[in-house]
C-alpha cells in the first residue's frame, strides 16, 4: 500500500499553507448537501474531483460520466484506469462539495483538494466532531475514505450519505453505517441561517403523505418528519390485493409511510370456517387435523364423526353425506361447533357440548348415544375415521 506521502504526491494533493487567504464560502448546510447530491451517478476517478450538476441534480446529459476499470488482479485503485473527463475519488468529491480549500465550480477539474486522512484531524477549515453528533453536510472520514453525510441519523443508527465509493460503483447515494474507525468533521463557515424562529414547512411525499419540519434553534431546519397521511375511509378504504387469493385478497387501503397500500390478512393455517385462510384459492381444504375433522361426535342416529361442511364442523354418520340424511342411511340431524369450541349452528341433535378436548377442535359429548353404541357402530366409526372423505365441497 502506498504511504500517505506518496499518495499525496501522486494525487497532487494540497499541503495547504495556513497563510493562504483562501477560505470556504459562507453558506448553508443545504447548499453543501445539494452540491453533493449533484455528483450522484458520475464515475469514480482516482485523483479526480469534478462533475456537472444542475441545482441539486447531476447533469449526466451535458457531461458524460467517465468509466473506471480495475486492472487485472488489483485490489482497488490506484490500480485502475479511468476514461472520460469527469469523475471524482472520495476526497476529491468531499473537497469539492465542501468547497475547500476555496470555491471552485463542480465542473472544474484538476484543482486543489485534500486526501481522506486530512479530514480525520482538526484543520483551519473544519473541526473534528463526535460521530454521535453528525449532521447533514458533515463528513465521516477514516485514514483511507471520506464520505459526505446528507441525512440525520435514522432510527437504527444509519445515515444517508453521498460518497465516491470506488471504481466499481462511482459516486453513489445510500443509507449506510460507519465503523468506529470513522471520525466526524464539520466544515467552518456554515453560519447562514436557513429559517426564522417559529417557521414551519410541509411538503407532500409518496402518494398520500405529508412530512413536516420546523426551524430548530431559530436558525436551521430540523430533519423532515416521517412521511405520513390519513387512511382512506368509506368506500375508498376497501381494496383487493392483485394476484392474491382467499383471505389474503380482501383488504383495507391504508396510507403507510406516505404510500397507499392494500393491507390484507396473511396466510394462516386452513381451518373450517368457510374462508380460504391459507390463501391457496380453495376454501376449507386443510388437513383433517387443521380442520378438526374425524373426531367422534354425538349424532341422533348414533356415533358420528366431525366433517367440515359449508364452513362448519358437522356431525355426520359414517357413510352419510350430510347430517340430514335419514337414519337408515346412517344419518341424522346434528351440529358440532366451531374450532374455538363454540357452536356454529343451532344444535338440534341429542348431543350436548362440553369443553374442547383438543386445541384444534371441539368435542361433542356422547351422552345417551354412547350407551347405545354397538360394536358395529364402533367399527363403522373406526372405518369412517380411516377412510372418510371430506364433504366440505
Amino acid at each position, binding site marked *: *500500500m*502506498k504511504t500517505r506521502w506518496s*499518495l499525496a504526491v501522486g494525487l497532487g494533493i494540497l499541503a495547504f499553507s495556513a497563510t493562504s487567504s483562501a477560505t470556504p464560502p459562507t453558506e448553508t448546510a443545504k447548499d453543501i448537501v445539494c452540491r453533493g447530491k449533484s455528483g450522484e451517478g458520475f464515475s*469514480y476517478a*482516482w485523483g479526480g474531483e469534478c462533475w456537472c450538476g444542475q441545482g441539486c441534480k447531476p447533469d449526466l446529459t451535458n457531461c458524460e460520466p467517465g468509466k473506471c*476499470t480495475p486492472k487485472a*488482479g*488489483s*485490489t*482497488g*485503485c*490506484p490500480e485502475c484506469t479511468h476514461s472520460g473527463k469527469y469523475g471524482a*475519488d*472520495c*476526497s476529491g468529491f468531499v473537497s469539492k462539495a465542501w468547497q475547500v480549500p476555496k470555491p471552485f465550480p463542480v465542473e472544474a477539474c484538476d484543482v486543489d483538494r485534500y486526501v*481522506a486522512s486530512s479530514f*480525520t484531524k*482538526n484543520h483551519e477549515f473544519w473541526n*473534528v*466532531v*463526535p*460521530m*454521535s453528533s453528525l449532521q447533514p453536510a458533515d463528513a465521516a472520514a*477514516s485514514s*483511507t*475514505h471520506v*464520505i459526505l453525510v446528507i441525512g440525520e441519523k*435514522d*432510527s*437504527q*443508527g*444509519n445515515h*444517508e450519505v453521498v460518497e*465516491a*465509493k*470506488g471504481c*466499481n*460503483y*462511482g459516486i*453513489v447515494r*445510500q*443509507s449506510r*453505517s460507519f*465503523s*468506529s*474507525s470513522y471520525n*466526524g468533521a464539520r466544515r467552518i463557515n456554515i453560519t447562514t441561517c436557513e429559517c426564522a424562529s417559529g417557521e414551519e414547512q410541509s411538503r407532500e411525499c409518496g402518494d398520500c403523505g405529508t412530512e413536516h419540519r420546523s426551524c430548530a434553534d431559530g436558525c436551521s431546519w430540523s430533519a423532515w418528519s416521517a412521511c405520513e397521511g390519513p387512511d382512506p375511509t368509506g368506500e375508498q378504504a376497501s381494496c383487493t*390485493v*392483485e394476484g*392474491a387469493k382467499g383471505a389474503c385478497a380482501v383488504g383495507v387501503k*391504508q396510507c*403507510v*409511510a406516505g*404510500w397507499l*397500500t392494500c*393491507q390484507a*390478512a*396473511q*396466510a*394462516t393455517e386452513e381451518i373450517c370456517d368457510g374462508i380460504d385462510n391459507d390463501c391457496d384459492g380453495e376454501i376449507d381444504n386443510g388437513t383433517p387435523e387443521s380442520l378438526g375433522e374425524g373426531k367422534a361426535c354425538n349424532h341422533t342416529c348414533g356415533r358420528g364423526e366431525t366433517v367440515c361442511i359449508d364452513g362448519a364442523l358437522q356431525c355426520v354418520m359414517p357413510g352419510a353425506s350430510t347430517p340430514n340424511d335419514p337414519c337408515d342411511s346412517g344419518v341424522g340431524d346434528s351440529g358440532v361447533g366451531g374450532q374455538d369450541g363454540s357452536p356454529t349452528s343451532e344444535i338440534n341433535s341429542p348431543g350436548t357440548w362440553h369443553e374442547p378436548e383438543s386445541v384444534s377442535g371441539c368435542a361433542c359429548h356422547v351422552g345417551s348415544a354412547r350407551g347405545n353404541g354397538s360394536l358395529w357402530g364402533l367399527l363403522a366409526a373406526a372405518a369412517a375415521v380411516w377412510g372418510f372423505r371430506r364433504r366440505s365441497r
Partner: protein
Amino acid sequence: MRLRPNAVLTVILASCTLSLVAPRTAEAEPIVSHDPMTWVFPWDKTVGRIIGQEADSEGPKSFVIKPDGGALILDQVNCRVLDTDPKGNLIQTLALPAPTFDDIELVNENVMVLADRLVSKTLLLMDLQGHPLQQIEIQGRGITHSGLVTAMIARTDGVWLEVEHRHSVKVLDRALQPCERQIITGRPVANGWNLQGKLDGRGEAIVSIGRRIHRETMRSVSLKGQLPIRRIVWLDMDAKGQVHVVLHEAQFATESPYPVQKEQYAWVVLDESLQEISRTISPWVLTLYDQRVECRLGPDGRMWQMAFDTNGVRLIDWGRGTP
C-alpha cells in the same frame, strides 16, 4: 421460471465479464477452521476484498445460512457466491454478473435473490445451479431511491425490502413474481406482525412488535447495554416467535478526536412477550471493510455473524457459545 431478457442484465453481465478476465483471487481453497463455531475464509485466497485508497474498502457484503446449515457468502468482489456445506467446506462457486451486489437472501432451497442497490438498482433471482431466473427494478412504489434500502428479507409470502429502517415493501410475491407492492411499517415477521427497532437517543434501543394491518403496537421493550447503544445491527424473529436483536454498544472519548474506547456487539433474545431470555456478547464489530449484513439468523434460530480480521472472513455461529 425463465430468464427474462433485460437490458440491464446485459449491461451488468458486461461489467463483470471485464473484471473476470483475470480473477483477482486464486482458485477457492478449503477454509481454515480450527473451531467448530468459527469458519475462517482467508483473504485473497478464498474471498476477495477491495483495499480502499481514497475509496471505500469492502469484503463480502452479505451472507445467508442455508436450511442444511451450510452458507452462501456473497463474494461480490470476485463476482461470485461461495456455497459451503454445513462444516464450512466450499462445495461450489456461483458466478455473478456484476461486482456490485450487496445483499443475498435465500427464498427457498434452490433460489437465491441478490440485490444491487447502487449500480444496476435491481434484484436478481438465481437458482443454486447459477442460472439467472429473473431481474426486477428495485425503485418503484414505496422505494424512491434504491440506495435507501436497509434490508432484504425473504418470507413465506414473498421478498420484502426495508427502506430507511422505517417501512418495508413487498416486491416479489410468494411465487417470486413482481406484485402489487404492499407496504408496511417496520419489518415483516410471521403471523401478520411487524417488528420495529428504534434508538431512543439516550443510549437505549426500543423494540416493538405490532400488527401489520392495524398498525398498532402490541408490545414494546426498552433495551439497555453495558455501553451506550450506537446502532441496531440486526433485528428478526425466529420460527418459535422469539425476537433476536443485535446491538452495537460503544463508548467514545469525550474529547477530540473522540476515539472509540470500547465497543462490542450484544445479541439479545426476547420471548414473544419481549421478555429477555438471553444475552451474548461478541467482541467482533464492524471494520473499515464495508458490509451490508453482518449478522443473520439461521433457519434453526441460531445467530450467525460474518466478521473480518487480518486473516480473512470469520463466519461465527453464536448459537454454539460466546464468540
